[in-house]
């Protein structure tokens, strides 16, 4: 007998939940419990399957649900989460402010701290996370702070917090446990500890089998380990299951490394078409992927700068600053690149990727000594930072 994977079993449970209440849940006279169950089911299914179109359908349903029920705080929070996933930070703020309780509840405070982080208010973000942990020591609040510390280059502290987050998770939350394992794997990967990353990914798969997200991380690691054929095989399976353009781009980049330029071209074009389609329809979610794509795949600095400016207008943080700096670098505008990367580094963020970009920009600006120093630090953080990796 074939046992369904944990991923499949959960998807079936979500489908059952949706089917139990059905679309008619939104037809007046409505029942709050059914409305909430229905739209939450749509949201969970979209997130579970990584389907952005389904996420938009869920958003429309949530909007309708908000119109139907008196106390819609939960649904505003749900929509704020959804908007956050799509990088619509102004919408996040608007939904939080629609229900004053959300500005004070732990879940609302967590999103506000996330907003601070995304918008470059690092001290407020860290303080916000710490305050939530003090009052609500939940796995996700610990993971949020861990993520912050990881981005700021405090890998040991990040891993300690992730470990603590895991300790809060029970056998009834294996998907979340697997997700934290992936983060711990990413931390190892960012420091060149491939074997350790592999252990975390294997543990994630063991904890929660069959999730495309785990497979995608494993494919990246295989690529980083130069096990290209295995990586390509796995990527191919993942992109067949989940048509996310960022995965298609990653697969294309792997194929490029493998010298399979024609195949790579196909996947890159597919990814680009999806990015542009999203942007044409008002989506801002893929701006930063477009920056990466034009800067590193197409090596089109001008286009990269154009998209980077749009992204930084939404969220001015070290990542968007560095992306714009890199775009300027690609565009041959060294002084702007230098100013941008300096600003990004002033945030305190540290990673081999960021520092290697800083090294390249400084080198282009004729600052060989600084470039060498950045390159050395990048190599110290991750001696394998030039291996295949994904822009997340």
């Amino acid at each position, binding site marked *: 007998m074939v046992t369904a994977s944990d991923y499949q079993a959960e998807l079936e449970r979500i489908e059952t939940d949706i089917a139990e209440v059905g679309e008619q849940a939104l037809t007046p006279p409505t029942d*709050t*419990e059914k409305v*909430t169950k229905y739209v*939450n089911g749509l949201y*969970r299914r979209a*997130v579970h399957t990584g389907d952005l179109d389904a996420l938009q359908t869920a958003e429309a349903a949530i909007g309708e649900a908000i119109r139907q*029920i*008196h*106390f*819609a*705080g*939960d649904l505003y*929070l*749900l929509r704020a*989460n959804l908007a*956050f*996933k799509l*990088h619509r930070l102004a919408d996040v703020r608007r939904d939080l402010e629609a*229900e004053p*309780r*959300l500005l004070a*509840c732990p*879940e*609302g405070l*967590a*999103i506000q701290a*996330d907003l601070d982080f*995304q918008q470059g208010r690092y001290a407020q973000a860290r303080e916000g996370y710490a305050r939530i942990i003090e009052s609500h020591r939940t796995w*996700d609040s610990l*993971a*949020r702070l861990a*993520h912050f510390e990881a*981005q700021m280059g405090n890998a040991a502290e990040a891993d*300690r917090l992730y*470990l*603590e987050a*895991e*300790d809060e*998770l*029970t*056998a*009834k*939350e*294996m*998907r*979340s*446990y697997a*997700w934290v394992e*992936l*983060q711990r794997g*990413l931390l190892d990967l960012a420091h060149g500890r491939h074997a350790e990353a592999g252990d975390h990914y294997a*543990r994630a798969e*063991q*904890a929660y089998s069959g999730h495309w997200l785990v497979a995608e991380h494993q494919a990246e690691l295989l690529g980083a380990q130069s096990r290209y054929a295995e990586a390509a095989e796995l990527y191919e399976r993942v992109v067949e299951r989940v048509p996310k353009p*960022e995965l298609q781009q990653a697969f294309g980049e792997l194929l490029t490394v493998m010298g399979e330029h024609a195949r790579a071209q196909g996947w890159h074009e597919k990814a680009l078409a999806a990015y542009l389609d999203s942007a044409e329809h008002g989506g801002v979610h893929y701006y*930063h992927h477009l920056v990466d794509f034009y800067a590193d795949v197409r090596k089109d600095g001008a286009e990269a700068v154009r998209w980077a400016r749009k992204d930084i207008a939404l969220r001015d*943080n070290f*990542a968007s600053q560095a992306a714009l700096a890199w775009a300027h670098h690609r565009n041959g505008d060294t002084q702007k690149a230098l100013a941008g990367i300096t600003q990004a580094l002033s945030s305190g*963020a540290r990673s081999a990727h960021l520092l290697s970009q800083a090294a390249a920009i400084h080198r282009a600006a004729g600052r060989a000594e600084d470039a060498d120093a950045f390159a050395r630090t990048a190599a110290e953080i991750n001696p394998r930072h030039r291996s295949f990796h994904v822009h*997340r």
Partner: protein
Amino acid sequence: MADHNDPNAVNSIFSDIDVSAADLYDIFGFPSADTDGGEKVVIALTFASVPQAGVLDPDLLYRIQIAPSRRIVRAAKEDQSLEALLKYFDGIKQTYLKTLKPLEVRVTIDADNRAHIRFINFPGGSFAQVVETNKNLTLKSPGGHAIKAYIGGRDDAFFNDLPGFFRSINYAPQFYHVPHTMTEARELPIPKTFLELEGNDLFNYDPANPNWGHGVKKDLPPGPLTWSGNKFAKNANGNYRFVYSGKDAQAGKNVNAIILEMPLAYITDAPAQNRIVNCWGESWVRKAANKVETIPDDPLWIEHPHALIDALTLDDELKKYKLVDTDGQAFADAALSEREDSRQMGANNFWLAPHFIKRLAHLGWGFGPSVSALGLKCAFDHGNSPVSVHRTYSSVIEAFPLVKKVLFQEMRMPDDSWNPKGLNIPLRRPVEIFIPNVNAIDMDTTGTWPFGRRLEDQVATRFLSVFLDMEAEFNGKKYHVEIMNNQAVWDALPIEPKTPPNPLKNDREFLGHFPYLAEPW
């Protein structure tokens, strides 16, 4: 920055965590009538029948902790000041933390629904056994003691009008769809009461919707979630309306249970002296890391100070689980701890003693005036308030004088049947009953509440009698813990429906023999 991979990516505002098998319901305990071969104590821990009655969740671990002790001798001239009370709490704390070394029965379930039962630190010998579920078993200890055990599904032995209780405390989630984010809309700021408040449309019984609160919920109305009236409601007959219905909300429901009957000589070396068997239950859920078999023990407990404290008290197995629920004294959690997860502390609830005093005063301002309005005498000092009041306290010093009598009055028993040997056993008082949060079974009594808890005890109603003045009389007889279970009382009071608040007996007859709880439905 990890744009698509941050914690927000997996965060869901609605809990999809199912740990309801960890929801402990009750812990019963009483001396067994079977004294062949020596005295025995019966302890039954009941919990949610998840995944189903007779099938237990393999991710859960259940503990029954047992601390035999001597009966506390009360000082002839007792100091009943707040200072003395806090000193008493501290003494209890020291006893539980340092003196008593609880024995433990630990149960886990394997993938084949077999129970792994372990008896840990018992003077009569520790041992472990893998046993079948849903069967009456007799286990043999290393010292040869026969221990009866049943682990599996039974009828829920608790019989009560839970919606009535929730109506009395204006607990909105029983009656309304309360959004997760409306944390202030649990117990609404409306006076707690036994009698309906005039104009309290948020909670008063609606004859057009009789199932409201019994599975049927409404949407929260947009208006203020408060009450602005100033009197109790009366019907055309001039009677008050009872918030209780007397109906059994647990009828036809099952539980899973761990039921034990153990020789007293097995749990203490000095059964003649240790006449009190303190017991409480705990449910623990397996940590995620432990579910992945190949994962070595986390070094977290070395690195993290909170875990370090745990490491000093938890054994290797418990470090792999997370405490979810505790159960000791009936109504200690539901009524006195506001059902907050952070207050699930079992015997360790001496930390909560100040909160207990403040909560009791809050309840007193609600229940007290409704007791008085009926013409009954109340132990809580509400200053002759004509109607229930919603009042909370931040200061123990302020609350203590009002609840002093409630805390220190002896809970009179209806007759002497609880004390079959006629021994000089003091009546128990609320201060002793609820702190610590244990079921303290007195082996020289029948074990009826508050000297333990027998299956047939209507403890929900007995709990309410805490607010009555035990020095007062009804029909020439002093109040006692059973008075509100007496139909004659309700017949005499200006109230409708004329029913005791909770049903007088269980929907299924209990068995006269082990495992005592009725067969599951």
